[in-house]
């Protein structure tokens, strides 16, 4: 059953807020506290907010399980590919070969609470993004599955 209009409106307003805040945490993982896991968890909590505010039948139509599964697999694949990418260039597995490489990526980073240089640190932001995608898919699909287990019992 859905909750009241007040809760639903709040959830609707906070859902993009959760998303953008999660993206902020993921994108600044190498500069400020946070990273892929934390940001993914924030975004997944946004999904949890939607799930709790609406009825299951409504939400299962709007959020597709298959899309989330795809998110998860793609995120993991990206993470693994980022690790494996060094192999083709003669570096070991998980070598951060892009750091300090000099071109668009890999400039040295400045001090400061938020220096604003998102493209430093080589592979780390890419890995952060990959893990963020994976975690948001994984955690929200766990919630969806468990709620479906409750609902389909009756």
């Amino acid at each position, binding site marked *: 059953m859905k909750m009241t*209009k*007040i809760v639903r*409106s709040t959830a609707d*307003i906070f*859902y*993009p807020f959760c*998303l953008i805040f999660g*993206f*902020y945490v993921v994108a600044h993982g190498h500069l400020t506290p946070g990273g892929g896991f934390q940001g993914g968890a924030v975004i997944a909590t946004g999904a949890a907010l939607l799930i709790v505010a609406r009825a299951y039948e409504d939400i299962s139509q709007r959020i597709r399980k298959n899309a989330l599964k795809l998110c998860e697999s793609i995120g993991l694949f990206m993470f693994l590919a980022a690790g494996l990418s060094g192999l083709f260039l003669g570096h070991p597995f998980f070598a951060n070969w892009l750091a300090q490489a000099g071109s668009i990526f890999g400039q040295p980073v400045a001090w400061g609470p938020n220096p604003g240089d998102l493209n430093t640190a080589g592979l780390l932001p890419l890995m952060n993004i990959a893990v963020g995608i994976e975690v948001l898919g994984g955690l929200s699909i766990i919630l969806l599955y468990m709620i479906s287990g409750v609902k389909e019992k009756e």
Partner: protein
Amino acid sequence: MSNMISFFVTSIFSFVVYLLLTAGSGSVLRLWSSQEIMAGAVLGLITGFAARKFFCSQRQSAPLNPLRWITAVLYVIGPFFIEMAKANVDVAYRVITGRIRPGIVRVKSGMKTDLGTLMLANSITLTPGTLTVGIDEETNDLFVHMINIPEGTEARESLEAREVFSIFNCPAWIRRIAE
């Protein structure tokens, strides 16, 4: 078409929030770096795509008008804050003396949109001795728990929203912002 509008509204909202979050990172306007603005634009578009069905679900054009945003800010730091301070003094008085006369009354909201109802409900919850307990989904009437019902009020079928607030006409402000 309305789909596009809600998409852009959500994106702009996200972009503003992102800029607030990343303030103090660089030299544009002494606050932002160019990279942050670019990343914010991209992430705002993504968020707009993902959340467009939720943020502006009922085709309301209220958030589009920048004047309303300014009114909202004024409302929050002006009437709302004073009401809230008064509410807290009231609650403090009740906490210390323990003199309460609680009950749940029906309040006619007169709001038509969800956003207005939300703002009114939250304003009521945060202001004098009142707490929104329930809502009538069709008429948007609120059921409000009051910590101190004035004598004689409990016999009335429903109250006007204006009567819940003491000094300012908050419902009018909200109507100006959200409808």
